[in-house]
């Protein structure tokens, strides 16, 4: 077995506030292999984005990684000195943020922003970098790139801007791309194009992709594997077909019910009653237990750990009990 591009082991991220230390990520583990697209899905505040930020080393005080490890192609990167992790960012891990409208510096031409990034990570000359920038823009599907390279961000539409952002993320040929809700802020009609672009790039370059989203439709279309997060933990992880067709975790079940039958229809997660607990008030035991229709006593006391269940892994006492019984 080859070394995964990204390997996260028992990651813990805390935010130290004056009242308490809030654990935003509590023991998350997953791998992404070369060329693989891992979808990370969950409600707001489930810890999806924080996981992405932790991987790329952008957790700022008062937040900190308090445990676990992150390995990029076998190299541990979670405790690198600032300067070294900087070299990793952009070079080996590309990042795409949610809102292309605010991700680009409005005062700089997009070409300059790309050239700047390229030249930070390579020793290409100014003109070579510029040529590369134009190629990149062409690659992400921007028409007339040699002209648009001198445009300012505000001259681009949202979808086009997200393409620019993608170009920026891949300009140093990274091993891993973290796409944090790359389509949320876009028109529905554009969303599919962007997702397709990310997928194509991942395939063409053999890049691993971590796609953070709350949109199950996107997950179903794009990902090879999917991780369902809830309250800073992974509730369920597994190949996308399995998880989508046969979700095990009660939360995942609810979530999958939200997959629209037709693209573009209501995607709201309305099936599950109640809402995710605040970080300061995560209940003991399984964090999902107050909303869970199947919860029993153990769920309120003991925290379930992710256990393999076929190709999937699920953190739920329901399956643990089944496992126990079958073992017995």
């Amino acid at each position, binding site marked *: 077995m080859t070394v995964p591009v990204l390997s996260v082991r028992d990651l813990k991220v805390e935010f130290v506030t004056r009242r308490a230390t809030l654990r935003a990520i509590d023991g998350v583990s997953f791998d992404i292999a070369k060329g693989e697209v891992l979808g990370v899905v969950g409600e707001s505040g489930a810890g999806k984005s924080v996981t992405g930020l932790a991987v*790329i080393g*952008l957790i700022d005080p008062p937040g900190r990684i308090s445990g676990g490890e992150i390995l990029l192609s076998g190299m541990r990167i979670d405790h690198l000195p*600032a300067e070294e992790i*900087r*070299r*990793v*960012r*952009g*070079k080996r891990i*590309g*990042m795409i*943020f949610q*809102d292309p409208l*605010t*991700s*680009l*510096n*409005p*005062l*700089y031409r997009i070409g300059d922003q790309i050239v*700047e*990034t390229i030249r*930070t*990570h390579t020793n290409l000359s100014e003109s070579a970098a510029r040529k590369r920038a134009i190629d990149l823009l062409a690659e992400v599907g921007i028409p007339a790139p040699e002209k648009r390279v001198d445009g*300012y961000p*505000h*001259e681009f539409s949202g979808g086009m801007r997200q393409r620019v*952002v993608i170009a*920026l*993320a891949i300009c*140093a040929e990274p091993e891993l791309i973290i796409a944090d809700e790359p389509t949320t802020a876009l028109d529905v009609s554009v969303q599919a194009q962007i997702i397709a672009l990310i997928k194509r790039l991942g395939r063409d370059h053999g890049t691993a992709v971590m796609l953070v989203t709350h949109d199950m439709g996107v997950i179903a279309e794009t990902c090879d594997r999917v991780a369902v997060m809830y309250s800073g933990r992974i509730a369920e992880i597994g190949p996308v077909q399995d998880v989508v067709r046969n979700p095990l975790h009660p939360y995942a079940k609810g979530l999958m019910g939200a997959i629209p039958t037709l693209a573009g229809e209501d995607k709201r997660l309305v099936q599950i009653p109640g809402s995710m607990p605040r970080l300061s008030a995560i209940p003991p035991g399984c964090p999902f237990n107050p909303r869970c229709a199947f919860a029993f006593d153990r769920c309120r006391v003991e925290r379930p750990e992710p256990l393999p269940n076929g190709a999937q892994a699920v953190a739920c006492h329901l399956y643990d009990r089944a496992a126990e019984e079958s073992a017995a």
Partner: protein
Amino acid sequence: MLAFTLRRALQAIGVMIAVGIISFSMFRFAGDPVNQIVSIDTSAAERASIRQSLGLDDPVLVQFGRYLVNAAQFKFGVSYQFRQPVSTLLMERMPATLELAICATVLAMVFGILMGVYSALRRDTLLAKLFQAVSLIGISLPTFLIGILLIYLFAVTLGWLPSFGRGEVVRLGWWTTGLLTVSGLKALIMPSITLGLFQMTLIMRLVRAEMLEVLRTDYIRFARARGLTTRAIHFGHALKNTLVPVITVAGLQFGSVIAFAIITETVFQWPGMGLMFVQAVQNVDIPIMAAYLLMVSLIFVTINLVVDILYTIVDPRLRATISRPA
């Protein structure tokens, strides 16, 4: 762009007319100028004839019309005190005020931006806290008090710097400058500091706040995610974005600097327009007061226009909105 400039210019003219009305109506009633012209034992008949020759007995509307027509041609009449055309006096005094205002602004900008950037980037260091403290004191001490203290300390007690005036000035065409002589430069130091201190603290606080705001934006986060160096992020991306609003504010503040120069010039006896204005107020020298207000408004309005245009040059987003017909 042209339409925008034109619209702004029209607004500027509107402002100028409004200021004209205000200044005229204010000064028309601010005191009897005749008393300033003649000595106390001048007969009433003589006073009446002077009133008449000044046109002070005409209907107010007539006086205002005359005033506007003349002002449009930069004819502000003759100063009651100096018996010279006000435009000549203003031209003589303007270099002093502008030089002081520019020095103060440059001082304020350079130190304000440096201190602001530093205290935004190194928020918790001792020096940053010191800057914060200085800035608070800077905005909490009235200008006149600072001026008096500086004079007391550096001119009277230590004898290092001159206490008043501009020192030796050199004439370059119609402009006079104190920047080319040692005594002129020395004379500039205290007034510039006094005048610039408030602006400096203002700019420092603004830069700090803006910088902190900018550092929180998505594009900075994205820039970090792209692996750009801290240096490039702070001084390339963050600073440039910070400076856009700072330029506007500093530009607009330049008008304030000229107005605040009234106080500084009085304290340091700086032979500029502000001092002349204060003397004119004391002596009810109506032509000078009216001309000063109009001149200062003109400067304000011009600065506004320039800042607007400058803003569009710095910020490409605005260029787009403006060139699009509204």
